[in-house]
């Protein structure tokens, strides 16, 4: 007592305060880190929500009687073709330059530009149709970027007798121009004579694919697709469909799969060629319809994605095919616009007016393809006949459209986790019950750390073993494994029942260790029986080949890396977690309750069933839920053992891809800030939310259960 001098007391208090401060600071830092993580994830996904913005920018001046305009990659200027047959490059800083189209006789009557913005078709004053390759050359002059439009003649044709120019397409080596005729359309190409396609009525809209091989023609009553094949270049009808209203505008979306037709009723219909009812036939199908107020005046496709611009008398708006999102209005769109289009990088929109002004807007629609609808609802992508859940984030070609449905990933995550729980929860709970209530304590001291040591095995090793050892073995012995699943518990129960019939004196002599040997013996005997019988079972029931039988009889394919493999591997990783928590729950059951039960003449199993299990049930529930949380978040095992096929299937013999695996695989490839990146961050956020919800539910429900089971006597 005498040691507590005032100075010593002060020192103790100081240390007390320091330690308390340190602990508080540490705890706060942890909370802060978690909060920061949440905020970061949230902030990264927020842009997915917004529809985007379109802001007016400074406008440029066009020459007299402008016909059409296009922008350069850097949006530094606008190149306008005037009726004088000259390309006027109007730089926004005022410095202009002009490139005359030599040989085009002014005034030009009309002009069209292809979808890629590289082929310019014109009809001059002498009714000649010309095609020019136009380009904006980028050069450097005294450290400054200089943009220089160039034009090269490609094709000249007599245009007498032809109606309006409808479309230009193909490439610079084989340009194709389509013009309306009195009874259809004419196709002009460099190496052959003009070919007329009879439709009955003059073609109103047309579009040519970028390879120059496919021609879409819309007339008053129908829409037809032609294939332009071979040197003879004879158009072959692929499919046709009657139209309800005559088309007023048309455009082929990037990818050349979807033809948009606008009509006077204000509708824009997206037409796609799909397989017909009879094999080998094709038909046209309306994949989507976009409605709006006022007739459609013109349509312009985006050069980068499935966005398109719809012009109506009252203004213009942006729509996106895949997400079916419509309605981003361009503010103060001029009523007298003669042409409008996207900038080459889809970062802007311009509109050319007869009043010699080129209006410009800055477009910020960073993630048009990601909406709640495309992420969580079935989407009909191009080439699909039905809306489906598809995750396919990257593809081979530039016009590939990422398909970002999160549903297969969510389902895959839960499928993996549930198969894992199906295997691990009974094993872990039974092991915990046995070790805590029945096993001799010597066994407990060995087995408990051994099971817990399973958790120390790196999951990459578990995944490796599962993928390279377990999966092939399972494929060869799938019947045996499935049989074992059914027979093993039955075998043990049968053995126990047989033991009940054994003479009393034998049974009384059994010590706990002998019991264990008996069970292990029964298990081994059952396994040996299953191994011996499995080939026969497979021969008799499954015609000798289970996966072939499965495919033939149920139409189910057998993937080598499938949910059963994942169930085992992930289950292996989850067992120690469930076991440890369940064992703790059983150990926390007051021994006095078990004693009370035993003293009333209960057998050990009765005591476990009526006292230990109910008393431990909140803990057992929490253990299983925590296991579920771990299985949902586990990455490495599912990455290696699932096959990573993001398919939507609940079959145990199919592979899957989980959310965690997707993040691990694709985040390194996603560009910072792009749609895939944000969707993956959203996936991470959902994963976080899911494990959070699962763990919180585990705690809340187990607390409620604990209350319901009352205050346990100590």
């Amino acid at each position, binding site marked *: 007592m005498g040691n507590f001098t005032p100075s010593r007391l002060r020192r103790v208090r100081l240390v007390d305060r320091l330690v308390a401060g340190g602990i508080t600071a540490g705890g706060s830092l942890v909370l802060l880190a978690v909060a920061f993580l949440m905020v970061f994830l949230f902030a990264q996904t927020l842009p997915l929500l917004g529809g985007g913005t379109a802001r007016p920018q400074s406008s440029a001046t066009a020459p007299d009687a402008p016909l059409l305009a296009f922008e350069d990659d850097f949006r530094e200027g606008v190149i306008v073709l005037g009726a004088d047959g000259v390309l006027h490059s109007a730089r926004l800083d005022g410095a202009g330059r002009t490139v005359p189209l030599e040989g085009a006789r002014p005034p030009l009557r009309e002009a069209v530009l292809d979808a890629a913005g590289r082929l310019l078709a014109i009809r001059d004053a002498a009714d000649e149709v010309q095609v020019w390759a136009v380009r904006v050359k980028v050069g450097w002059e005294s450290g400054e970027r200089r943009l220089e439009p160039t034009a090269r003649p490609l094709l000249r044709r007599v245009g007498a007798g032809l109606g309006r120019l409808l479309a230009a397409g193909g490439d610079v080596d084989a340009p194709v121009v389509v013009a309306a005729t009195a009874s259809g359309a004419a196709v002009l190409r460099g190496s052959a004579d003009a070919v007329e396609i009879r439709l009955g009525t003059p073609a109103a809209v047309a579009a040519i694919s970028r390879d120059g091989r496919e021609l879409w023609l819309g007339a008053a009553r129908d829409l037809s697709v032609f294939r332009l094949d071979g040197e003879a270049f004879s158009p072959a009808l692929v499919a046709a469909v009657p139209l309800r209203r005559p088309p007023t505008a048309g455009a082929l979306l990037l990818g050349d799969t979807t033809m948009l037709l606008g009509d006077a009723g204000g509708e824009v219909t997206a037409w796609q060629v799909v397989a017909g009812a009879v094999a080998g036939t094709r038909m046209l199908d309306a994949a989507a319809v976009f409605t709006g107020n006022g007739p459609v005046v013109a349509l312009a496709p985006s050069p980068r994605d499935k966005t398109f611009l719809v012009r109506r008398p009252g203004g213009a708006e942006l729509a996106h095919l895949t997400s079916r999102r419509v309605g981003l209005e361009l503010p103060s769109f001029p009523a007298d616009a003669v042409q409008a289009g996207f900038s080459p990088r889809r970062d802007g929109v311009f509109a050319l007016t007869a009043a010699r002004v080129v209006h410009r807007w800055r477009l910020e629609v960073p993630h048009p393809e990601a909406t709640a609808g495309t992420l969580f609802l079935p989407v009909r992508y191009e080439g699909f006949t039905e809306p489906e859940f598809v995750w396919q984030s990257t593809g081979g070609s530039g016009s590939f459209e990422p398909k970002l449905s999160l549903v297969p990933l969510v389902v895959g995550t839960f499928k993996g986790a549930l198969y894992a729980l199906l295997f691990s929860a009974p094993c872990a709970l039974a092991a915990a019950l046995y070790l805590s209530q029945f096993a001799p304590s010597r066994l407990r001291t060995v087995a408990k750390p051994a099971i817990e040591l399973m958790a120390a095995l790196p999951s990459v090793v578990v995944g490796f073993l599962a993928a390279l050892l377990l999966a092939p073995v399972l494929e060869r012995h799938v019947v045996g494994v499935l049989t074992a699943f059914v027979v093993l518990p039955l075998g043990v129960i049968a053995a126990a029942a047989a033991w009940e019939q054994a003479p009393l004196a034998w049974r009384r002599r059994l010590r706990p260790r002998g019991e264990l040997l008996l069970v292990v013996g029964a298990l081994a005997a059952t396994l040996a029986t299953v191994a011996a019988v499995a080939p026969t079972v497979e021969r008799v029931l499954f015609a000798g080949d289970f996966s072939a039988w499965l495919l033939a009889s149920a139409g189910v394919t057998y993937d080598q890396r499938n949910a059963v493999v994942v169930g085992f591997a992930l289950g292996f990783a989850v067992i120690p977690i469930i076991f440890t928590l369940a064992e703790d729950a059983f150990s926390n059951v007051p021994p006095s*309750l078990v004693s009370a*039960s*035993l*003293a009333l003449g209960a057998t050990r199993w*009765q005591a476990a069933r*009526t006292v230990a299990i109910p*008393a431990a049930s909140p803990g057992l529930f929490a253990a299983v839920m925590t296991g579920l949380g771990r299985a949902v978040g586990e990455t490495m095992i599912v990455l290696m053992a699932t096959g990573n096929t993001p398919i939507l299937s609940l079959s145990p013999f199919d592979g899957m891809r989980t959310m965690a695996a997707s993040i691990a695989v694709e985040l390194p490839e996603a560009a910072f800030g792009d749609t895939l990146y944000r969707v993956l961050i959203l996936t991470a956020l959902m994963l976080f939310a899911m494990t959070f919800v699962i763990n919180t539910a585990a705690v809340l429900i187990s607390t409620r259960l604990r209350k319901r089971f009352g205050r346990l006597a100590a």
Partner: protein
Amino acid sequence: MNDAVRFRLEALTCRYGPAAAVHGVTLDIPAQGVTAFIGPSGCGKSTILRCLNRMNDVIEGFSVGGRVLLDGEDVYAPGFDPVELRRRVGMVFQRSNPFPSSILDNVAYGLRLHRRPTRAELELAVEEALRAAALWDEVKDRLDASASSLSGGQQQRLCIARALAVRPEVLLFDEPASALDPISTARVEELVTELGKRLTIVIVTHNLQQAPRVADRTAFFLLGKLVEYGPTVQVFTTPAEEQTEAYVSGRFG
């Protein structure tokens, strides 16, 4: 019948691992009346009590030598079922340990272990057990209430009722009142005396006043050995052994 022997211990030796806790105790417990085991902590009285219904079985490393005969049958014989034994020899523990369920379910627990009684049978048996435990009048209106809503003394009497419900022949008490207040203690003691008239009661007690109040016979243990055993009055007033004298007069313990 008064002289019938319920339990006969023959050279009972108990070991926890290598260490012996009870050394060769030989003792007869008659079928009638209350027998008290007294002695200081660690004298082996609880160990012996737990041998009577083999509650020591679950303890790792525990072994017995000698014999424990219940009505002439060795309870540690290989063919003797400990579950059957515990049904015949009930036990009430030092601290009340009702199950976290209703009063009714607590009392019915033992009945339900062995068969599926009808509702009427159950209610009858529960009422009888609760009356025998002198708890009926206090709980008859709230049989479905949680057992943890009872006071400590009531809980202990509930445990007694629970043990009585399976109609044991013997009831073992392991310091049943050590955690109770004086009034509750008195009620439990009354109950023990009352029950002693129809059952064999063995009670371990620390409380030197309790043994004379409830017990017909008293056995005094010291360091795992039986020092003295006889009618309570004799053990407390004219002990044969000096150690007994020293203990009952409160000189150690």
